[in-house]
């Protein structure tokens, strides 16, 4: 099977891999790069567990043809810590007990980050809209919404 060479930035580092035709970005990240933070939840674009940022925009890795990210910058949950410190969103998710099984958490955090990166002071309705593509089966969403709002206000205070 012929493979295509592919280079892109992964959490600030340049990486190069060879992909089979049709490989999606989720498989590329997990199986070829070894970044297990994006999760497989459906492969249909319906759950958001594989959400990543491509050039700062929220995308679903499972619906992204890997070779379309050539030369672009991919950010996953693995890259959002600030040095040894948690990102304010990670802290807020923890403080608000916004994770139970934890499987949707990486995607939720990326969706929330995509929001706060361009709208640092969102309303509750904007938070709801921002996470609407991400399914959580455990929490009932309320703690997640509160966590994102808390992260926004902690950043405002900082």
């Amino acid at each position, binding site marked *: 099977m012929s493979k295509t060479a592919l280079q892109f930035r992964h959490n600030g580092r340049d990486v190069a891999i060879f992909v089979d035709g049709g490989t999606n970005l989720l498989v590329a990240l997990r199986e070829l790069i070894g970044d297990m933070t994006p999760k497989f939840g459906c492969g*249909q674009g*319906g759950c958001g567990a594989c959400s990543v940022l491509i050039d700062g925009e929220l995308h679903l890795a499972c619906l992204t043809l890997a070779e379309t990210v050539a030369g672009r910058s991919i950010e996953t949950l693995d890259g959002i810590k600030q040095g040894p410190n948690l990102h304010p969103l990670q802290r807020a998710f923890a403080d608000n*007990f916004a994770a139970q*099984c934890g499987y949707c958490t990486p995607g939720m955090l990326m969706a929330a980050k995509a929001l706060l990166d361009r709208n640092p002071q969102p309303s509750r309705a904007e*938070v709801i*809209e921002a996470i609407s593509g991400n399914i959580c089966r455990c929490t*009932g*969403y309320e703690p997640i919404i509160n966590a994102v709002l808390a992260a926004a206000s902690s950043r405002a205070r900082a």
Partner: protein
Amino acid sequence: MARHRGRGIASINYPIGMNLGGDPSQALVHSNPSGKFTVSLSSIDLGQGMKSVTRQICAETLGVPVEDVYVDTADSDTGPHCMGSFASRGTHRVGNAVMAAAKEARGVMMEAAAEELEVNAADLETDGRGNIHVKGAPHRSISTKDVAIAAQFKQGKTISGRGIFLVPLSDVDPETGEMSPATCYAHACLVAEVEVDDETGDVAMIRMDSAYELGRALNPRLVEQQLVGGAWMGISHALYETTEPYYPVSSHGPRDFVEYLMPGPGDICPHDIAVLERPAADGPFGAKGPGEMCANPVLPAVANAIFNAVGVRIDKLPITPEKVLRAIKAQGGARPQPRR
């Protein structure tokens, strides 16, 4: 057109654990030479907080800070037998097993400490901050770390414990159904307020007020996670979910998360919860288990609220807008019941 509000209630109880084949779980607790403890389980944390609640139970029983305990779950080589994470049995059954194991380990720890302090073990107590001292004489103290070192390198003792909690099988009388299905029961009552659109049958959740009795909230934040998330699942079961929308016709099953309906973050409502604690005689620190029962009162409370709002009874789940609309049309329009 009009939108009508209504309130409905439901009250329930729920059995803790399973009764079939007996209901055992085991736990192992051991200390490393620094006085840090590992709990080995084959139980599963599927989000409910198994690791966290057994960690607190172990720390409380040992008398050490929670940071000194780590729970390792679900390895069939290292974790002793557990029936599994279902039937609301985690907190109660596994919690009891961990408690028993931690008690045994504590016994050895206190003996070892007694030997070091040259007192009787019965005269010692833990301060919960990592020290063991003579009752009434806090200055005659030794750290759990020093006890662990002494036990390992000097005394030749293993600070460890084994625990099992078994609810033996209760036979069922085939003729009468006489049986002991559970050892304790959790309780709840929930009030749901809804708004019903009498032209479309849409039902919107407005708010919920509830009281849940769980024996003891071993960790109120974990309890809150279960109750908030569980009530959401209750709303979902009441109004949205099924794999067979035209049951018992089996067609048109959903294939993805757009077709499988669950309330989104824009469909949720405020939920004000009170937790009551009537300790169960056989629960770890009296605890029962909130995991499953939290969804149950929501379904009927919502159905009853819909009746209060528009006067129709929907007895088939899920209560889709179509069922509500058909019922409203069949009775010739909404018939709001007295507000309550």
